[in-house]
């Protein structure tokens, strides 16, 4: 069910123009795992994520000369990958492979965070994560963040990724996924509640142990 034909595992250096500096090609190899995990969050499929990254790496090599250096090389490569991922999702949609979102029903995990009267359950009351700047500097935080993103239900992960990782507006997301905006808001609300609970658990436990 992959959208693009599988490409062979190949070294990102392969086919690099002679003008491309070795530090760039090393850089590409170094960030490859991050690119793959980013792609996996959106596409939820390892083979497709690998394909997307492969295409992005090849595009980065081909277009090396156009990199202006203002945004930082990694950011530039991530930018390319974002477009590849969106292309794949649009392609999947045209092929009818993008599974429709239906998440109007109850969500037990969310319901369990609150009491009947709408107040927080004692076990899920949000606690302080400490200084936000320190949080995002922490390797541990990112490990927890990754794990919690992967643990999200597919719908929630896809919409949250498009909204917050890709920076699409909910209007654009609705068009891509063919859902109503209200539905999009509901999904995002639930995604945030799940994520914050999951991260809080992993983050605070990891810090104190």
């Amino acid at each position: 069910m992959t959208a693009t034909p599988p490409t062979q595992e190949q070294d990102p250096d392969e086919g690099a123009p002679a003008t491309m500096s070795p530090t760039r090609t090393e850089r590409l190899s170094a960030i490859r795992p991050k690119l793959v995990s980013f792609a996996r969050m959106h596409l939820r499929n390892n083979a497709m994520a690998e394909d997307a990254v492969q295409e992005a790496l090849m595009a980065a090599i081909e277009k090396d000369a156009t990199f202006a250096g203002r945004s930082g090389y990694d950011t530039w490569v991530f930018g390319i990958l974002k477009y590849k991922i969106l292309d794949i999702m649009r392609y999947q949609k045209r092929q009818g492979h993008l599974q429709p979102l239906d998440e109007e029903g109850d969500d037990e995990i969310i319901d369990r965070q609150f009491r009947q009267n709408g107040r927080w359950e004692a076990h899920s009351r949000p606690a302080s994560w400490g200084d936000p700047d320190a949080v995002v500097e922490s390797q541990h935080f990112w490990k927890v963040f990754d794990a919690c993103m992967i643990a999200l239900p597919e719908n929630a992960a896809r919409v949250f990724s498009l909204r917050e990782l890709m920076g699409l507006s909910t209007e654009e997301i609705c068009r891509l996924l063919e859902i109503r905006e209200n539905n999009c808001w509901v999904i995002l609300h639930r995604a945030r509640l799940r994520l914050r609970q999951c991260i809080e658990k992993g983050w605070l436990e990891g810090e104190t142990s």
Partner: protein
Amino acid sequence: MMMCKEATRLMSLKHERELTLQERLSLRLHLSMCGACRQCDRQFSLLGEAARQYGPDHEADQHESGQHESGQEDDGR
């Protein structure tokens, strides 16, 4: 009187669209009285912040950041 669950809905919604005056006021009132929701509000913002930083900047492996070349900015398209 708005309860926590409804308050979290507005905390999330304000990241997607501007809240109405009524929504803003009831959220502000709730937050002024509820410490747990104030934490939640910060966490939702941090999730967005983290997501925006996700990718290139995460993992503190600072590399050669001094590469400045002139030319047109390319958005990777």
